[in-house]
């Protein structure tokens, strides 16, 4: 039995990082500094991407490393994928205009 694991860096974080690809509905094991032992994934999460370990309100800070790495642009459900579609940088506007899967910029017309 091999279930995917996610890694939480700081105890206060509200996201963890997937160490392998996670499929919607899978139970993932928690590693690192976490109160939780496992979590149900409510969406697919690519390897190296973040999962919400609790429900995060719109405008709430996203915490990783125990520090703010951005803010939620919508309500993010516990167990779901956290990336450009639901969070943004506080400093850098451009990263909100990148393709959520490829990271490619979508804000310049190639004419």
């Amino acid at each position, binding site marked *: 039995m091999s279930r995917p*694991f996610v*890694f939480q*860096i700081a105890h206060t974080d509200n996201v963890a*990082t*997937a*160490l392998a690809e996670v499929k919607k509905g899978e139970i993932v*094991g928690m*590693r*690192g*500094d976490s109160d939780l032992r496992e979590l149900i994934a409510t969406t697919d999460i*690519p*390897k*190296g*991407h*973040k999962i919400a370990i609790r429900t995060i309100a719109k405008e709430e800070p*996203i915490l*990783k*490393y*125990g*520090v*703010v*790495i*951005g803010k939620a642009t919508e309500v993010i459900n516990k167990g779901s994928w*956290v*990336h*450009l579609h639901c*969070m*943004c*940088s*506080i*400093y*850098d506007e451009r*990263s909100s205009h*990148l393709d959520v*899967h*490829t*990271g*490619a*910029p979508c804000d310049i017309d190639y004419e």
Partner: protein
Amino acid sequence: MEELTWKGYARKDGRKGIRNRLLVIYTVECANFVAKQIAQRAQHIDVECVGFSGCTDNEYAVRMLISLIRHPNVGGVLCVGLGCEYVQPERLAKVAREAGKEADWFFIQEVGGTEASITKGILSVQNMLEVMQNVPRVDMRFKDLIIGAECGGSDYTSGLAGNVVVGRLYDDLVQAGGTAIFEEIVEAIGLVELLTNRAATKKAKEELQITYDKALEYCKSVRQYSVSPGNFAGGLSTIEEKSMGAVIKSGSEPIQGVLKVSEVPRREGLWLLDSTPDPYWMQFGITNPNDNEGLMALLSTGCHLLFLITGRGNVVGSAVSPVIKITGNSDTYAHMEEDMDFDAGRVLNGLCTQSELCEDLKKMVIDVASGKMTKSEKLGHKEYFIPYKYQQKGVIKRCDIE
């Protein structure tokens, strides 16, 4: 906390070293071969060669050489010049003597060629090594250490495990009363408030702001930013997140201020080292052309011990101070176990907790400080790199220069 002690080397300026190295220093590329032969043929683990290739002197490079001469891990120097260069071996030897170190120097042109110079150099090195055996030994503790950290060849594990364990160890070291130094301000873009909010003093806050602004300007001028579409595709969502993966190696303690290259920390605690070229001459010299250049900048501040954190693996060591190579990637560790010292990937594989991992690293630090050789020391790695660069002493605003 248990008070583990070991015997260090007592230097005349009050600093303590964990090694007793003898540096053969060449002052121009023309003297490189002779200096390397002396170091090699001396056949002693503590004899190593460093030098500066340029004939025309450069204040940054001269200050770097002087900082290595004064380094607590160094007990003696032999300066080898050709005889017509700008950099003066006699003056470097004088600096060494004033610091209470063994010192000798000569010009190859005066001695009369390759073999005569090598023979003279080996004799001089042997005499100095004998005297260096009498350097007084003194008790050292974890809190006496100055440790520097640098990352290179990063992968996704660096920001999750490798840099994270270093940050935790830095917190332990600083809380114990020791000194920790981190660099790579150009990789901290987006984190200005986080950094300035960690400033220990008003002056430190100013220094951090000025240094951050300079780094941002530098990134603009050389069009080198630290985040790309590939990073986002890999799961990083913001520049803050990407930058934190690097900055986490500084831990969470207050920052005492900014050091320029070859500046010794003014007190214990956590310091940011700025190795970015200063404005006005910004295009003159690249901030970190390779990992060893970054390690040299850390050495110049007096670091007893260096951490090199890598995801992909590396083989280098360094002159002057031992390097502990850490990887967060257990596959890399297994693939390059001959070279990698510490496998931080165990925490990602669920084999230990983050606290246990940090304790293991601390044990390794104390072992190496007590004299145990790192993998790169065993293999004979003694890399060094001293470039031409422009940096003034002290943290200076651009408008103060122009």
